[in-house]
């Protein structure tokens, strides 16, 4: 499935047709086929879960990370080297050190794969007419990017994950650099160098991690994520070592997410990228960072996550929530506004992740999905508006609801989803993330919750200035068409999913439940052992009691906090109506 888009891309490249429609249709069919395949896999997995029920959950209890479907193929084996030397087996070089082509699917990857393949279809549809130069190459890039993303989400080998992680840079560099806006060259180069420098540190961290583990614990294959996570759960590394590794691994992921001091590449890249590029960049690519934390940092370095991760990442993501929201508030360019809102939303994601409990992590995964859907859709809509009016400046636009009512309706709907109105997806994700954080560290959750209010503020400002009030459009654009069928097909599934997840999130939750449980179990045990080591069993009990009582008390208040934007939304609605 992963290589289907790549095969499509290679075919396109070989038979580079001058007929642009041919390459468009090929790309569309290939992406649809990928979507179909991933849906089949998801359905297969869901039926498996229903049939096996407890069994599949029992099998995941062994390893903190365990794919439900897997494909392994040995790729580069370092351990064969010394077969004919008379060194005892145990002392041979490269005990079991081998790179594997190990792809698998667990709940998290199923969701991400679905998101990627859906957004790619939308991205291809939206660029149908807006891309007119070097069309074939454009679709080749899109399809290659899809391959990289799918691969990264399905990789269960550390190095393989890194390979796909890095590989996505190349097609995105071309997408931004060739088909981007005025400053595209600068934006593309900056994005590339910025992320590459970060991920080289991550690579160093990975190498460190593997070699250190391999020297301590003989493993049949230390590159494999499930085996490595089990080994490290059984005999954890020294905490200071874990902290070093955590910082090294985080370097690349923090840039990718991006957390606040490392975010400067993002607005530029988003604004300069073509619409499809922004959709995939915001919708899926940023998730590589969060998935990186989820896949590597949480299961492999649990103690470091508790000791350094929580204070560091939670602080940064709280800052990010507020900073992103304020940044969005200050923007005049709609696309820039959406870009800054991404920083804010991913702050919620990271906040939930580092709550390190079931509610937080599943909320965070849900929030990844939500952000992909709603921000992807926002970028699609912004792209449509830009195509019609050739401007994205809020000062030049106004009252669009009268001119292009259907696009405006979609915009309002998606904005509501994005700001977390109950009944839509954003609410569930943000609520769970904040709830999780509230249980663990209330202070971050309280500050973070104010981001929800700010989120409602900037999105409503956007709606008010752009879509209501007196009509204000650039000259010579009196008679632009409203949404077209092709564009509607691109946006509609995203909107439907936003509603569905908002109303009935339980299938999603059920898919990720075993994986989240696998992760969390480790933290529960880990917290206690950590405290035991420091001879503070009593404190631990007190803390857990306190947490339990807090859960009862503050569950309600956290709920109240997230309710605030609803009130704000309603009052602003009234403003608009008046």
């Amino acid at each position: 499935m992963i290589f289907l888009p790549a095969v499509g891309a290679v075919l396109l490249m070989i038979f580079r047709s001058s007929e642009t429609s041919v390459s468009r249709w090929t790309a569309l069919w290939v992406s649809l086929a990928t979507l179909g395949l991933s849906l089949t896999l998801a359905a297969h997995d869901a039926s498996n879960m229903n049939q096996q029920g407890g069994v599949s959950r029992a099998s995941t209890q062994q390893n903190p990370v365990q794919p439900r479907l897997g494909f392994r193929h040995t790729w580069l084996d370092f351990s064969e080297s010394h077969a004919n030397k008379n060194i005892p087996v145990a002392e041979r070089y490269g005990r079991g050190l081998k790179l594997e082509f190990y792809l698998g699917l667990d709940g998290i990857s199923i969701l991400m794969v679905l998101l990627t393949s859906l957004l790619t279809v939308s991205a291809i549809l939206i660029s149908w007419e807006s891309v007119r130069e070097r069309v074939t190459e454009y679709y080749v890039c899109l399809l290659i990017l899809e391959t990289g993303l799918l691969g990264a989400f399905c990789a269960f080998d550390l190095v393989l994950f890194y390979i796909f992680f890095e590989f996505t840079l190349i097609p995105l560099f071309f997408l931004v650099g060739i088909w981007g806006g005025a400053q595209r060259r600068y934006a593309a180069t900056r994005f590339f160098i910025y992320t590459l420098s970060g991920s080289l540190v991550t690579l160093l961290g990975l190498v460190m991690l593997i070699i250190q583990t391999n020297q301590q614990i003989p493993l049949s294959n230390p590159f494999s994520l499930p085996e490595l996570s089990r080994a490290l759960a059984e005999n954890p590394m020294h905490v200071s070592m874990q902290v070093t590794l955590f910082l090294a691994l985080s370097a690349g992921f923090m840039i990718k997410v991006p957390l606040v001091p490392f975010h400067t590449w993002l607005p530029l890249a988003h604004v300069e990228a073509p619409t499809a590029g922004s959709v995939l960049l915001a919708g899926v690519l940023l998730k590589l960072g969060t998935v990186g934390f989820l896949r590597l940092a949480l299961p492999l370095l649990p103690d470091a996550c508790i000791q350094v991760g929580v204070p560091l990442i939670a602080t940064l993501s709280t800052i990010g929530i507020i900073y992103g929201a304020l940044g969005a508030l200050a923007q005049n360019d709609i696309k820039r506004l959406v870009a800054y809102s991404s920083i804010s939303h991913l702050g919620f994601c990271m906040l939930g992740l580092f709550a390190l409990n079931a509610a937080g992590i599943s909320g965070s995964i849900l929030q990844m999905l939500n952000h992909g859907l709603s921000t992807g859709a926002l970028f699609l809509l912004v792209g449509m508006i830009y195509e019609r009016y050739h401007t994205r400046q809020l000062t030049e636009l106004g009252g669009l609801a009268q001119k292009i009512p259907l696009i405006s309706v979609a915009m309002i709907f998606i904005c509501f989803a994005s700001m977390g109105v109950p009944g839509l997806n954003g609410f569930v994700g943000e609520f769970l993330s904040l709830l999780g954080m509230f249980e663990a560290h209330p202070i971050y959750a309280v500050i973070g919750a104010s981001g929800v209010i700010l989120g409602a503020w900037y999105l409503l400002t956007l709606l008010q200035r752009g879509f209501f009030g007196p009509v204000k459009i650039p000259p010579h654009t009196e008679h632009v068409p409203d949404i077209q069928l092709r564009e509607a097909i691109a946006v509609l599934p995203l909107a439907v999913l936003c509603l569905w997840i908002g109303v009935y999130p339980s299938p999603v939750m059920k898919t990720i439940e075993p994986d989240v449980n696998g992760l969390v179990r480790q933290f529960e045990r880990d917290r206690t052992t950590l405290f035991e080591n420091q001879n503070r069993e009593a404190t631990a009990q007190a803390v857990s009691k306190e947490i339990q009582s807090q859960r009862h008390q503050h569950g309600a208040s956290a709920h109240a906090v997230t309710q605030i934007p609803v009130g704000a939304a309603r009052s602003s609605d009234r403003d608009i109506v008046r």
Partner: protein
Amino acid sequence: MISSVEIFADSVSRILPELVLIVTACVQFLAAPFLVSSDGTAPAGLRHRWGGLTLIALVFSLVLWNTSSVPYGGASSLYSPFQIDGLVWFTRGLTVAVGIVLVLLSWNQIPDNQAAETHGCLLITLAGVSLVSVMNDLVYLFLALELVSIPTYVLMYLSRKDAVAQEAVTKYFLLSVFSSALLLFGFSYLYGVTGSTHLQAIQSGLQSSGLSGVPVVLVVPTLLIIAALGFRLSAVPFHFYAPDVFQGTSFLGAALLAVVPKIVGVAAFVRIFGLLDTTGVLLHIGAPALWIIAVITMIVGNVFALLQNNIRRLLAYSSIAHAGYLLVGLAIQQNRIAPLAGVQAVLFYLAVYGAMTAGVFAILVYLNRTDRSIETVSDLAGLSQTHPTAALMTAIFLFSLTGLPPTAGFLGKLNLFMAAWSEGTSSGRWLAGFMAVNAAIGAWYYLRLVATMYLDPPAKPVDRNQDVPSFIGVVLCATVVLGLFAVPHWLWQWIAMIAAV
């Protein structure tokens, strides 16, 4: 008692692939004057025939290499100066493969009346490269090194004769001779300490000599040998010739200098320092110096490459930076419990480096025209629209040089990282750290080339290219660069066997 005839036959059988090359070169030198008329004109298309002959010789040598079994460890003989082991097997294969690309690359670049001499010199150089790894004796090793150097001077001079080229050749010649002198001086110390020129005897002599600590009598030769071989690798501070010479000579000369001396340097290094069988005393002494040189070389190469506008100077600095990466692998002390040895990583990287660098030069030859030469970076502007396939290939090579997946360059760097880290000392970890920083700096200038090709509008009108041989070379290199990423095991299994410490 073994008769001298038997020794002779034995020796000949050991270096058969090289003999094929040398005999072919002799035929070319002898026959060439009779095919060129007295006023220096040659029948048109003569270069195709000589090129064909050279290719046949290389392929024949490749077949001989391929049919020989891979020997494990030391089939060493005290009678013969030739030692056949895994390193020889590796170097031979690599040399001949690089040679085939170089012949394809130079095919249409040389005038008909000089074709025989150029190809002959090339063959002798190649034979010299693989002989360096065969030699088991300091004196013969030195001879093999000179067998590489001398035809190189001729080759560089033949291909371009203006003032710039003369300056380049002279510079290279003088510095090369100087480095040979250093090497000989270093060898003389080794002979003085151990009383033998035979490499095995020297190694065992050093180990049993009872010299403790860091004896000065060994420090001097170690540093001299490192300096001399550093010149071959174009390591800082012995790199000054590289940018000027790359700029001054032809593409063939530059490609030759970018790849061949690196193979020679690594092979000689592995031999003299005894990296394959023992943890040499010399390496122990030389490691700190190597560590410093590796770090400086990486930094200088990458930082200066950022400043270059001339594409050959840029590639020269890039080749210096890659020399730094190779030195990282060489500077690592061998560690028995490490997952992979520095030597293994270096050999893998060397093969990958050969493919990607030869590929870049083959592309430049393919694009170069007498009326439209490729000199500065901006000459590549818009290549993706005028020559899409060539641009794609160049992008593959450049991403490989950067060390990005899905190319073999990534695996090469990964291996070096792992080897450096698993050495287990803090100096090894620092090396890995410096390498990561430098890989990020290097990404800048490679990316600049890619950006120029893909993001800038074409500067010059399209012209269809017909230089088939160099394009075949490009495709071969690209196949290797991508293929070694997909099935690295193909190469790694042999390297793992060679360097089983």
